[in-house]
C-alpha cells in the first residue's frame, strides 16, 4: 500500500511562501509527476512528502495515517536524488544493502535481496565497485537499486535524469516506466521537463508559484488545460496564444491553438501570413510564420511540406480544437 494525501500543506522559508496550501490525493500504485518551471516549489513539495522538510502547516497522510511529524527515516518511503547521492565510501553492494542493514535484516537475506535488485538493474557485475568507478547511468541505477531493495510504500524521484545525456535519459525514462509496471508501487516523480511528465505519468500535477495549477492525466492536460499557464506549459512546441480581434470574434480574451490544430493553404484561409522559417524533421515540419495583425505563429504539419521562407500562406484554425480563455486566463469553453 502507498497512498499519499496532502491537506492544505503550506511551507514558508522565513517570509517567503514556497508552497501555498496544496491539496493532493495520490492513489496507491499511481505514477504521479510534479511538473512546473524552476522555482515553482515542486522539489520542496516532494521533500515535504519525504519528511526532509517540515511543513509550516497542513497535513501529510501516508496510507491514511497522519505522518506530518514522522521523521524521514520512519515514513517508509524511498528517494532517488538528482545528484544520485550514493555513499562514496561504500561499494555498490554496500550502497544497496545500507537500508536493509539499518532495518536490521539478516546477512543472508540482505545478500539475496541485493542480488535480486542488482539483477533487475543489470548491476550484478559491478557489485564490488565504488560509485566513482561507475558511469552516470550506472550510478543512477545504483540509486534506484538502493530504493527498490527496501520495498518502500512509495518511490520519490527528484529530477533523477537531469544529469544524464539525452540518449541515456530516454533509455532510463523507459526503464523507470517499466519498473513501475513491474513493481506497481506508488511513484512520485519531479521534473521540469514536460516531455518526461507526458510520457511517464498516470497523473500530472502542474505547479505554478507554490500552488497546484491543474491535476489530471497527460491527455486531459493537453486537451483541456484549465488556464493559460497550463496551456502554455504543456505541449511542445508550445500553444499559440492569440489576443485581440480574432479572440474577441470568438467571445474570449485569449484563444489558444496548438501547432497541429491549424490548416495551411497557399491560396485561401482566415489569417494571411508569411513563412519565416520551416524546420523539416522528416516526420513533421514545423513552420514559423508571421500572421498579419496577430504576430508569430508556430504550426506543425505532418510529413514533408514544401514551404520556403517569405512564402505567403493562409492559416485557418480548427474551431473544434480551439482553447478559449477569459481576461483572468481561465478556460471558458
Amino acid at each position, binding site marked *: 500500500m502507498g497512498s499519499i494525501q496532502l491537506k492544505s500543506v503550506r511551507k514558508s522559508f522565513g517570509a517567503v511562501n514556497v508552497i501555498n496550501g496544496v491539496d493532493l490525493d495520490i492513489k496507491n500504485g499511481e505514477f504521479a509527476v510534479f511538473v512546473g518551471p524552476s522555482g515553482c516549489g515542486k522539489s520542496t513539495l516532494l521533500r515535504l512528502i519525504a519528511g526532509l522538510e517540515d511543513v509550516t502547516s497542513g497535513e501529510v497522510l501516508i496510507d491514511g495515517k497522519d505522518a506530518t511529524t514522522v521523521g524521514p527515516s520512519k515514513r517508509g518511503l524511498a528517494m532517488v*536524488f538528482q545528484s544520485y547521492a550514493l555513499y*562514496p565510501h561504500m561499494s555498490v553492494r554496500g550502497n544497496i544493502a545500507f537500508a536493509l542493514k*539499518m532495518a536490521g535484516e539478516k546477512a543472508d537475506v540482505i545478500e539475496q535481496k541485493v542480488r535480486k535488485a542488482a539483477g533487475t538493474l543489470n548491476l550484478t557485475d559491478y557489485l564490488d565497485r565504488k560509485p566513482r568507478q561507475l558511469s552516470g547511468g550506472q550510478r543512477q541505477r545504483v540509486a534506484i537499486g538502493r530504493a527498490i531493495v527496501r520495498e518502500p510504500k512509495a518511490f520519490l524521484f527528484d529530477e533523477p535524469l537531469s544529469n544524464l545525456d539525452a540518449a541515456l535519459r530516454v533509455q532510463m525514462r523507459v526503464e523507470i516506466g517499466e519498473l513501475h509496471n513491474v513493481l506497481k508501487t506508488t511513484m512520485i516523480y519531479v521534473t521540469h521537463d514536460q516531455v518526461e511528465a507526458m510520457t511517464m505519468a498516470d497523473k500530472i500535477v502542474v505547479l505554478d508559484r507554490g500552488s497546484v495549477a491543474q491535476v489530471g492525466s497527460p491527455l486531459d492536460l493537453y486537451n483541456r488545460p484549465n488556464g493559460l499557464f497550463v496551456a502554455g506549459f504543456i505541449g511542445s512546441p508550445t500553444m499559440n496564444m492569440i489576443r485581440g480581434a480574432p479572440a474577441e470574434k470568438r467571445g474570449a480574451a485569449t484563444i489558444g491553438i496548438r501547432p497541429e490544430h491549424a490548416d495551411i493553404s497557399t491560396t485561401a484561409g482566415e489569417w494571411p501570413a508569411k513563412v519565416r522559417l520551416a524546420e523539416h524533421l522528416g516526420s513533421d515540419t514545423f513552420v514559423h510564420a508571421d500572421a498579419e495583425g496577430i504576430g508569430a505563429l508556430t504550426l506543425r504539419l505532418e510529413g514533408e511540406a514544401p514551404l520556403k521562407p517569405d512564402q505567403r500562406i493562409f492559416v485557418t484554425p480548427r474551431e473544434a480544437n480551439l482553447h478559449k480563455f477569459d481576461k483572468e486566463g481561465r478556460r471558458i469553453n
Partner: protein
Amino acid sequence: MAMKQSVGKRAGVTILAWVVAFLIFFPILWTFLTSFKSELDAIAMPPKFLFFNWTLENYAEVQQRSNYLHYAFNSIVLSIGANVVGLLIAVPAAWSMAFAPTKRTKDVLMWMLSTKMMPAVGVLVPIYLLFRDLHLLDSLWGIGLVLMLLNLPILIWMLYTYFKEIPVDILEAARMDGASLLNEILYVLTPMAVPGIASTMLLAIILSWNEAFWTLNLATSNAAPLTAFIASYSAPEGFFWAKLSAASTLAIAPILILGWFSQKQLVRGLTFGAVK
C-alpha cells in the same frame, strides 16, 4: 627570453623559500646541535657551529636526573586522550552547525573562535582556584580537561569547514534509507570525513603536545608532561644550556617525527576549505 626570465624568477623564489625555511628551522637545529656540546662549548663566544667535541653526556645526565618516560607517557596520554574526548563532542557539534544551522550558528562559531583570542593568563587565577577546590591540580583528568576545552573550538571549526564540503544529499539519502541520527553520523558522515578528521586530530595533538602555559601552571609532577620536563632544566641553579637542549630535543622529537610523516595530511588539514 620569457622562459629564461621565469627560470630566474623561480630560482629566486626557491632561494627565498629555503632562506625562510632555514630561519624557521634554525632554533630547532641549534637546540639539536647544542644538546651534543659540553656546557662550556654551549656558551662559547663566538658560538661553535659544528666543530666542537661531540658528546652524549647531556643525554646520559638527563636520563639520570629525571624519568623521561614518565613525562613522555603523560604527554601521550594527555594529547591523545584530550583530543579523542574532544572529537566525541566536536563531531556532533560540527554536524549540527554544518547541516542543521540556525540563525545563531555563525554567532556561536565566532564566539568559540573569540575564546581563542583571550589571553589565557586572564583566567589563570579562577581556573587555578577551581582546580584546587575540585582537587584537579596535577591530575591527568584535570590537565586533560583543560587541553580538551582549549582545543575544542579549533576541532569544531576545522570539522565544520570540512563537513560543509560534504553534499547534504548524501546525509538525506541515509535518512531516507532509515538511518537514525547516530547511524547517519557513524556510518555515513564519519567515514566520508575521515581525511578531515585525521588532519584535525593531528593538528590538535601537536597543539596539545606543545601546550606549555596550562600544563606548567596546573601540573608539577604526577600529571606533568614533557613541557614540565624541559622547564625543570632551567631551574634554580641557573641555565644549563646543553642539558636544557638535550631535554628539549627529547621532548620535541616524537612530535617532530609524527609531523614529518604526516605533513601531507597536515597541509591538507590547514588549507581545506580554502580551495574548492
